[in-house]
């Protein structure tokens, strides 16, 4: 019995220390994340492991994800455009122990789809989209966010 407990403990430790992974999604699937009806405000951040200001602001999203259960946070990695190997993203997630949902947008030819995500987006990273699907309000910001900015964006899309 004690051996079994030990094995279970080891197994649990192994699983929790295992590398984190993220789904690779296409544009259509991303658009579903953006537009699916939800009673939660969608907070979608576009980032990449190579983007220093993105990496700097990620703790703000992690904190929001943990503290505010009224919102749904999705971190969309844009790494694929330069490097299709997702390992770098996985390693980053594991190292930072990210708790928010992470997806990798696996699409080529950004010129074909950047505007479909938001018409105000030039493609610069980081960028953040906040959407209230209940009233259709959305807020898009294309720059590094600081403490309090996310809360302000969420307030702006509320009634």
């Amino acid at each position, binding site marked *: 019995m004690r051996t079994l407990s030990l094995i279970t403990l080891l197994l649990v430790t192994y699983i929790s220390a295992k590398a984190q992974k993220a789904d690779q999604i296409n544009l259509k699937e991303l658009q579903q994340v953006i537009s699916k009806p939800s009673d939660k405000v969608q907070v979608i951040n576009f980032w990449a492991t190579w983007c220093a200001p993105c990496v700097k602001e990620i703790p703000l999203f992690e904190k929001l994800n943990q503290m505010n259960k009224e919102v749904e946070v999705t971190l969309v990695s844009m790494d694929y455009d330069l490097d299709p190997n997702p390992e770098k993203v996985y390693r980053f997630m594991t190292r930072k122990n990210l708790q928010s949902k992470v997806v990798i947008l696996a699409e080529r*030819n950004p010129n074909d789809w*950047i505007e479909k995500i938001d018409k105000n987006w030039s*493609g610069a990273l980081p960028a953040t989209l906040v959407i209230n699907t209940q009233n259709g309000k959305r807020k898009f910001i294309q720059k590094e966010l600081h403490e309090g900015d996310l809360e302000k964006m969420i307030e702006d899309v509320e009634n």
Partner: protein
Amino acid sequence: MKNVMVLLTCVAILTGAHPVKTAYDVGDTASDFKLKNVDGRIISMSDYKDAKGFIIIFDCNTCPYSKAYNHRIIALNEKYFSKGFPVITINSNDGSGDSYDDMVRIAKKKNYNFPYLFDETQHIAKAFGATNTPHVFVLTKELKVVYIGAIDDNARDGESVSKHYVEDAVNALIVNKPVPITKTKAIGCGIRWRD
């Protein structure tokens, strides 16, 4: 009180009638700039008496997209300088790795064959409406903006490009044809603005 109201109304009308334009669109005429090059000289577009147009590229030392395009930018200047379309690159980024001294070092290391100008105040990036790097503006001799966007459609691999947006724009100018694609978007490093 009435006078104050009149004054405020005048201010409102004046500012409304003359909006401060902060980003160029295709068809707009760009203003010239005076910026310090990595060799210490101050450079303007008006210095290029024989130019038939310009390939202005907002770039960065540290951005991986800029690094992916270094050789392609050098090749653009090699191909088009002699045809009257010099490449001029501008670095407007604030923050570590993009100081003037860093720019001098990178330009030397990578053998830049074009000016690499320091936009310390970020005024030129704001006037053009540059947002990410590398961000290209193709201008005519009269400084009319004819193309805004990416160099091509494949950041990852220069060998697998299917659309050479900037080359197509400049080739069209050379033969007096309309530019086929005037605006594109690409993923890139957001210019790091001063707060």
